[in-house]
C-alpha cells in the first residue's frame, strides 16, 4: 500500500548538518554531544511514531479493513518510509535550534511543553482532517490545508526563520517525493496534480513546523547555554 499513505512528515532535507560543538571545555563538548545524540534519538523516535500513526490514518480512508489485516496495515507502506520520516524529523528538529542560535535570535515565543503538545495535537488534527473529511474537490482541500498550516505556524512559531525553513524543506520534500514517484518507487492511489497529491506540501510544512517546535523545546537548555556564551563574547 505504498500510495497516498506516504504521509506527512516525510521531510527530507538536503543539508543534514547538526549543531557543531564548539566550546573550550572538554566536558562541555562531551556533554553536548551526548545530549545531541539523545535529542536526535528522541526526535527520530517521535518521527517514526508519528509516521506510523498518520500512515494508519491515511490507510483507513479508502479501505475497509477487518481485524486480520490490522496489524499488517500499520506497516502497510514500504519499510523504509518510517525510518526516513524519523531521520528527517531528527534532522529538522536539530536544525531548527541550530539555525536559531546561528541567527542569534533565540526563539522565545511560547516555549512551553504544553504549547508543544498543542502544536502536535493540531498537526495530527490537520492530518486527520486531510484523511477523514470529505472535501468537494482537491483545490478546496489544498487551500484549506494550506490555511491550516499557516495558522499552525502563526499560532506556535511566528519566526521568519521557521517559516523559511519550513517552506524550503516542504518544497524539497515534495520534490523528492515527486522524483520517487517518477522513478516508480511508489505511487499514489489518486494523484490529482502532476502525479502527486496537491496537499502534500502543506502537510510537509506543518510537519516541519511541528518537528521544529519539538526540537527547539528539547534544545532549549542547550541553546540557552550557547547564547550565553555569545553574550560573553
Amino acid at each position, binding site marked *: 500500500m505504498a500510495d497516498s499513505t506516504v504521509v506527512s512528515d516525510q521531510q527530507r532535507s538536503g543539508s543534514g548538518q547538526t549543531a557543531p560543538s564548539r566550546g573550550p571545555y572538554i566536558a562541555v563538548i562531551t*556533554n553536548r554531544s551526548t545530549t545531541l545524540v539523545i535529542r536526535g534519538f528522541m526526535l527520530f523516535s517521535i518521527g517514526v511514531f508519528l509516521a506510523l*500513526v498518520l500512515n494508519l490514518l491515511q490507510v483507513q480512508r479508502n479501505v475497509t479493513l*477487518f481485524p486480520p489485516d490490522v496489524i499488517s496495515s*500499520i506497516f502497510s507502506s514500504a519499510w523504509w518510509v518510517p525510518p526516513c520520516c524519523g531521520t528527517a524529523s531528527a534532522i529538522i528538529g536539530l536544525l531548527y535550534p541550530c539555525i536559531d542560535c546561528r541567527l542569534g535570535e533565540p526563539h522565545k515565543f511560547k516555549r512551553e511543553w504544553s504549547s508543544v503538545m498543542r502544536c502536535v*495535537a*493540531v498537526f495530527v488534527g490537520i492530518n486527520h*482532517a486531510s484523511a477523514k473529511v470529505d472535501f*468537494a474537490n482537491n483545490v478546496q482541500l489544498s487551500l*484549506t490545508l494550506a490555511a491550516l498550516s499557516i495558522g499552525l505556524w502563526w499560532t506556535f512559531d511566528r519566526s521568519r526563520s521557521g517559516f523559511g525553513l519550513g517552506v524550503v524543506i516542504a518544497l524539497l520534500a515534495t520534490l523528492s517525493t515527486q522524483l520517487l514517484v517518477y522513478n516508480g518507487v511508489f505511487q499514489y492511489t489518486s494523484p490529482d496534480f502532476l502525479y502527486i497529491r496537491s496537499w502534500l506540501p502543506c502537510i510537509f510544512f506543518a510537519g516541519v513546523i511541528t518537528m521544529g517546535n519539538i526540537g527547539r523545546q528539547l534544545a532549549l537548555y542547550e541553546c540557552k547555554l550557547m547564547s550565553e556564551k555569545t553574550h560573553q563574547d
Partner: protein
Amino acid sequence: MTVRERLREKISAAFYRHGLLCASYPVPIILFTSASILACCYPLLRLPLPGTGPVEFTTRVRDYTVPSHEPQGDLGERPDWYRGPPVAYIQQVLVKAAVSPWDSTLVPVDVFRSPLGRVFSLLEEIRNHVHNDGSGVRSLEALCLQVTDLLPGLRRMQTVLPEHGCLLVSPGNYWQNQRELFDSDPDLLKTVHQHEPKGLHTTATLRDLLFGVPVKHTGVSLYSRKRVVTYTITMVLGSYDARFLSSLRARLRQLHPSVNCSLREDQMVHVHFKEEIGMAELIPLVTTYIILFAYIYFSTRKIDMVKSKWGLALAAVVTVLSSLLMSVGLCTLFGLTPTLNGGEIFPYLVVVIGLENVLVLTKSVVSTPVDLEVKLRIAQGLSNESWSIMKNMATELCIILIGYFTLVPAIQEFCLFAVVGLVSDFFLQMFFFTTVLSIDIRRMELADLNRRLPAEAGMPLPKPGPLRPREAPPPPRPSPHTITLQTPAFRNLRLPKRLRVVYFLARTRLAQRFIMVGTVIWIGILAYTDPAGLRTYLAAQVSEQSPLGEGGAGGLPPHLGVAPGFPGPGGDPASTLSVLPAPAEPTPLPENQSQGHHGAPRDVPLQTQAPPLVPQISWGAEDEEGWRKLSFRHWPSLFSYYNITLAKRYISILPVIPVTLHLSPREAIETRHPQDTRHPPPPSLKTNDLPADLTLYKVAALGLAAGVLLVLLLFCLYRVLCSRNYGQNGVAHGRRRRGDLPCDDYGYSPPISEISPLLLRGHSMDIECLASDGMLLASCCLAGQIRVWDAQTGDCLTIIPKHGLRRSSSSGCWEQRDGWDAMGVAEPENLGGGTEPGGGVFDEDEGYPLRRRTTPRPALFENQPDLTPLIDTNFDSQPPSHLLLTPPRDGFDFGGLVERAYLEHEPPSPGLTASYPSSSPLSGPPPQRRRSLGYIQPPVPQGQGTPDWESAVWAMELRGNLIAAGRSSGKLELWDAVEGSLRCSNEDGVSGITALAFLNNRIVAARLDGSLDFFTVDINKPLGLLQYRGPPGRSNMPPSPCYSSEDVISCQLTRSVQCAHQKPITVLRAAAGRVVTGSQDHTVRVYRLEDSCCLFTLQGHSGGITAIYIDQTMVLASGGQDGAICLWDVLTGSRVSHVYGHRGDVTSLVCTTSCVISSGLDDLICIWDRSTGIKLYSIQQEVGCGASLGVISESLLVTGGQGCVSFWDLNFGDLLQTVYLGQSSDGQGVRQLVVLNNAAIVCDFGSELSLVYVPSVLEKLD
C-alpha cells in the same frame, strides 16, 4: 490616547469590576454558573448516547418498498440512515425439532442427531423452491446475495462457510451440506466444537453464525433437558421479492405445519450499524488522546502558589469540558445535530479551546502582591491580563471564523462547535473559574493565618534515642501551597538505581494502578460494546433459573434429591429400587449395561421428575426476533468474512419462517451412528443442570488461586524489598542526628562518606565576613580580625589583627588545639621548639597551622623562599601602641604570635612596634623580604592610611591578593592578603560601608546612607625601585589581578553617587561589568562599572530587597522582603518574570543555567525554571535552618543548616548527603556559604570556618 489604548483601559476597568464582583459574591455566582451549564446541557438529553451499538427501525412488511436515496422531506420518525437499499435482506427459517414421543431407549445423542439431519432436506427444499407467476420464474439462486471468496485470513473456515454462490448458512454447513458426511460423522459435537475459538471471545463465533441462535438455545447438547433442537437456516438475499418469499413461507408451512405458532409476520426490522472501531482506527484515536492528556498535564502543572493545586486543575478541566458540553447543547438547541464522531473531534476541540486563559488568569492573580485583599487581588489579576485575554480570544475567533468559510461541511461544523465552545469557555472562565480561584485564594490566606500561629514548630524536635533510630519525629508540616516532592524517606540518600526504580514503582503504585485502570477499561469495553451479549447472558441466566425453581418446587431441594450415585432420600423408594432392574431392561445397547451405575441415575429423573415424554415445541414471542439474542456483531462478522462492511449501512431482517419438526423415535434410532451410543449418558441431574456453572466455578477457583498466589508473591516481594518501615514517615529529611548511621529507612547504607569537613579555627569570635577568590580565603570575625587562609589546604596564611579588642580566654585555645589534633592536621612541630621566646605566647598561638611560618632550619628556609614574606606581615600592621612585646630575635618573626598574645590577653599599650610607622604617608615599595631571611627589616608602610582598628569590618572582598575591607567608619582599606600589610586606605566617606564589590580594578562600596562610591585601584609600578630591588623581569609582567607586593597601590574615589537609594543599600553585586544594588527602598539599580552611570532603576518589589544574583550571563534575579522573586533582563531593564514563592523574606538567591534557586525565611527552598518562571518544585526544610545557598555544579546544590551542610540533587530534588561540621553542631547555623572553584565549599560555623571538599560528588557529575 489612541482608540486602542482607550479600549484597553476600558477593558481593563471592566475586568477589574468583574473581578471584584466575582470575589465578593462567590456562592451566588457559582450557583448561577452551574445553573446555566445545566440549562445549556439540557438539550443533550435528547441526543442518543454515542456508541457502536446498532440502531433499529421497524417497518411493516406489507407495503414495504425499498427506500429511495433522496431524503424525502419529513417522514416522521424515519431515521436519516434509512435511505437506499439495504446491504442485504436476512430471511431466517427457524427450525424447532424434537423426537417425540421420547423413549427411554433413546440415548442423549438422539436428541439432536436426527433433528439436525433434517436440515439437509429442508435446505434441499429451499434451494429448489421456485416461484412461478406471470412475470417469470424466480428461485433463490436469483435472489440471494452472491458471495465470492472468503477473506484470505479465513482459510480454516473455507470448508464451513459457503463460497462462490448463495450466502446461505445453516448447521448443515458443518458437513458441507452433504447428508453422507453427516451420517458418517461419529461425533457431531466434536465437529461442531472443533471450529470454536479457544479462550474468551466477545464476537460471534462460527457456531452462532451457523445455528443462528445462541448456543444455549440450540439444544444441541448431551445434557439438554427440553430435548428440543433449535436452529435456523439463514438466507441472505440481495434483493427483495415479496412474492417469492411468501410462496416459500407458504410452502414450508405447508410441509411442516406449526400448530400453535402465532408469530407476527408483518414487521421487518432494519438494523443500522455504526462505524466499526477497529484497531486501525483506535491507534490514531488513542494517540490523539495521549497527546491531549499530555497537554492537559503540562498545562495544569503550571498552576502554582494556590491552596489546592489539584482543585484548581480540576476546575480548569471542568471549565473546558463543560464549555464543550454547553457548546454541543446550544448547537442542538438551535437545531443543529452533530454528525461528526464526537470521540474523534473531542481532543481537537479541547486543544483548540485550550487551557491557556485559565492558566494565565491563575498566574496573574497569584502574582499580585500577597498583602492585598483577596478581592483586590482577583480584580488586579484580572485586569492585568484582560487585554491579552481579549486579544487572544479575538484572534482565535477570527481564525475559527476563517475556518468556517472553507465551506467544507465537516470543518464548518467543527468550527461552529469551536466558536460556541470558545464563547462559553470565556463565559465560564470569567464566572466559574475566577470565582473558584477567589475562593481558593481566600482559603489559602486563612490557612496561612493558621499556619503562622502555632509556635511549636520552632521547638527542637525530640532527639530519637540511639536504640530506636527509626522512630522518627513527624516530618515538618509542608506549607499548604507547596508540593512536597516525596515522602522524605525516599529522599534521604542517593540510592542505587535499581532501588530507585523499585521505590519509584512502589511509591507511585504504578503496577496496581495499571492493573486497576486496565481492569476498569476492560470491563467498560465489555459492558459498552457488548450490551446485547450481556443482556442475553443475563436473560439466559434468568430463564435457566426458572425451570430449576420449578423442579425444586416439586418437593425437595434439588441438590439433595440428585446426589450422584445416590437417588436421594426424598425420592420414591421404588425408584431407588429400580436401580437394579434398570440394567435388566431390554436395551439394545450393550454398552449401556457396562455402565450400569451411570445409567441408573439417568432413569431416576425420568421417572421421578417426569420430564415431558413428548417434548413440547412451543412458539413464543421470544422466537419472533431470535436474532436479538445474538451478539450485535453477529451480522457484521458474518458479512465481514466476505469483505462486506456493514459500517454505516443497514440490513433488513425479514420475519422468520417457523418450521416445526416432529420426529419419531424410530427415525431417531435409524439415523443413529454406531458410535453414538458410546456417549456416556448424563451421570446425574446435577450435571444436567449446571454444566455452564461448573466451568464458571472452575474459572472462579482458578482465578482465586491465581489471585492468592499473586498476593503471596507480591507480599514476599514487598518483604524483600521494603523492610519493616514502609508507610511510616522516615527521619525528618536530611537532618540526621549525630550518632546515627547514615542509613536510610530500608537499611541500605551507602559507603561511608568521604566528605569530611576541614575546620579552620582561629577566630575568637563569630565570623562576620567571608570572601574568597578561589585560591585564598579571607574571613573576618566580629572582633575585627581578618585571617587569610589557603583555600586548598586550609592553612592560615595571614592574620590581620585588630588591636582594639582583647580577649582573655585561653581555654578556648586549648579546645581548638584538640580540634586540630582530632582533625589530623599535622601538628605544627616547630611550635614547641626552643625558638619560641615565651611560653605564654606559644600557648596562645598553637591553634594555627604554622608549618610555613615557623620553619626553624635555614636549610628549609632556602628551599621555601616565598614563605618568608608571611613572617613580616604582622609587623606591618602592628599599631604603634604596643607596650609589652617580646622583641624579635634571631631572625624569626614572632609578630603574629605576639599579636595573637596581645589579642588574647593584653590591654593595648604602646610598645616597641611603635617604631613601625604603619601610618606613614610614605608609599614606598615593600621591602624585599625574600632575600632577608631571618632579618627583620624595618617595615616600610605602604598604605596611605592608618589601619582603623576602632571600627568594625562590615564588608570584605578578596581579589587577587588584595583584600578590600569596608569598615563601619566609612573607611575603605586595601590589604595585601599574603603579607597582611595595609596597602592603602581611603577615608572619603564617613558613612559605614555596608557592602563591597571588587571587580577588575574597581571597587564599589555601598554605604549606610544609601550612597554608592566607585573607587579605582591604581597600580603603579615603582620603576625606579625595581631597578635595583626586584628581579629584572618582573616589571615586564602584565598587570594582573594579582598585585605584586612591590606595586604601589592607590585607591581613588572616582565617583560618588550620593543618593543612590533613599534607604540603606542592603545588597550589592557586581558581574559582567554591571553593578547592581538593592536597597530597603524597594528598588534595584543597575550601574555600569566603567563609568558608574546608573542604567536602570528596577521597580517591582513591594518590600526591601534582600537578595540579588547576577552572573556573567547578565541574568539578574532579585528577591525581596515581600517574598517575591523578579528576574530581569539587564540589557533592557525589563522584568522577565515575577513570581511569589516565599512567605517572608527571600534570603538567598542562586541561579544555574537552567534554574533559579531561592531560599526564604519560611525555610523553603524553591527551584524555579529560569526561562519560564515556573516553580519546578520546592523543598521544605526544617525550621530554623540556615538560608545560605550555593551551587556547585549544574545539578548540585548545597545548603547550610544547623551545624551541617546538605547536598541536593537539583534534577530530582533529593538529598544526596548531609555533612556535619563539628562535634558541637547544635545551635549554630551556617550563615554564609561560599563555593570555591575546586568544588569545595566554605562556610562559617560559629567562630570557625569549615572547608568541605566534595570529591565524591564530582566524580558523579560528568
